[in-house]
């Protein structure tokens, strides 16, 4: 049963967006439902984000972002976890006249989390789990220069960014659990003193899991809200195309755990939004991921 609960924590996991509001919006950050698990983890995650951009209220362009991440997660001791990701992104903007494609390595990120609460029942099944985290995104990816380039299309932001997050999971009965998560990103400035505004994200999901033969299906349904502060250039806050605003979304995922492999499909659709004074509209977010779970060696278990 412990295993069931822990695996039930597995679908979104560490994600720092390389571009906060790229012609559109990326998720802020999430360690998601793997928070209470003590497996090591390596994997690949792919995400497609689609946006429309408007000029004077008329559709002017469409943007599509395809981001792929090599990810890992490792457990240091009983309470400390390290997450990391190296992204590669392909972005395409299509206007009436032409299409522009920008691709390259994004900014890698590392996140350190600490389990503040880890309450188990007599069967050693986790009942309540609270994780807090601190992360950093490093500006080593390909980034554009504002205002010359279409900066929002680039995979990197060119800035050091910091992340703070808290993630709480509560088990409800044998098959359900609830998770709430909040995160805040502090964005730095790039070499030309362009700075994306800070962003905040809160989300809550209900998780359901069911065993089928030797596999396990885990599904989730929840809500997410993102806020983005306005970007600034050379210390002055932008008033037009400032990447600021909010998005409220519904999100869902289906996951299959079989042997040591976890396959996941995620979808997100905005319910309401106001981005860059209505100049940008998020259409949908789709995700696909494959992770391999590495069981802890016996001597690692014995340490705990």
């Amino acid at each position: 049963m412990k295993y069931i609960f822990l695996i039930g924590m597995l679908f979104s996991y560490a994600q720092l967006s390389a571009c906060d509001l790229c012609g559109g919006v990326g998720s802020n950050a999430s360690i998601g439902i793997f928070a209470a698990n003590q497996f090591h983890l390596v994997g690949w995650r792919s995400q497609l984000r689609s946006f429309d951009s408007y000029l004077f209220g008329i559709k002017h362009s469409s943007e599509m972002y395809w981001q792929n991440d090599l990810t890992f997660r490792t457990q240091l001791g009983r309470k400390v976890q390290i997450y990391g990701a190296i992204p590669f992104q392909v972005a395409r903007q299509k206007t009436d006249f032409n299409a522009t494609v920008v691709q390259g390595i994004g900014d890698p990120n590392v996140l350190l989390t600490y389990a503040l609460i880890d309450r188990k029942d007599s069967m050693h099944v986790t009942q309540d789990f609270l994780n807090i985290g601190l992360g950093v995104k490093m500006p080593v990816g390909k980034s554009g220069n504002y205002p010359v380039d279409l900066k929002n299309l680039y995979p990197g932001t060119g800035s050091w960014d910091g992340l703070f997050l808290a993630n709480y999971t509560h088990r409800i009965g044998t098959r359900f659990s609830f998770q709430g998560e909040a995160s805040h990103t502090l964005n730095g400035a790039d070499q030309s003193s362009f700075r994306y505004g800070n962003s905040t994200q809160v989300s809550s999901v209900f998780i359901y899991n069911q065993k089928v033969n030797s596999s396990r299906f885990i599904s989730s349904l929840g809500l997410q809200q993102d806020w983005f502060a306005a970007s600034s250039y050379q210390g002055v806050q932008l008033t037009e195309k400032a990447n600021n605003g909010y998005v409220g979304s519904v999100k869902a995922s289906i996951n299959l755990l079989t042997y040591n492999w976890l396959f996941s499909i995620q979808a997100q659709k905005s319910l309401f939004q106001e981005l860059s004074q209505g100049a940008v509209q998020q259409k949908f977010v789709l995700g696909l991921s494959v992770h391999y779970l590495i069981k802890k060696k016996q001597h690692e278990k014995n340490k705990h």
Partner: protein
Amino acid sequence: MAFIALLSVTSCHKGDATSATIDIMEPMANDTIAYSDTVHFEGTINGNGKMYGYKLSFANAFSGDEYASFSSEAKAKSYAFDEHWHNQFSDTTMLTLKVEATLDHNGIKTNKYINVLCLPQ
């Protein structure tokens, strides 16, 4: 029979535009553009029906020589455009910025233009 066939080909498609309003938001007419500055050509085209594309051009106001142009055949009732031209003229030049919309499937067009003065280095 040939006459009927011809009529069917040349007759109006239902929903095609018969007129369009072209608004040029930037630049203002007769603006002066310094050397190395960028001309932002922004505006909208709103038809009273479906249109069949549009063209933006940057041309010499006196000779008509076209320095750059952008064409689209996208069908829509409205368009928004935002293109740029970098002033690197070696002589003072009057530049014509022109918007031309294709109103219907027969290629009937409407246009609007403004002039700006580009200064050399």
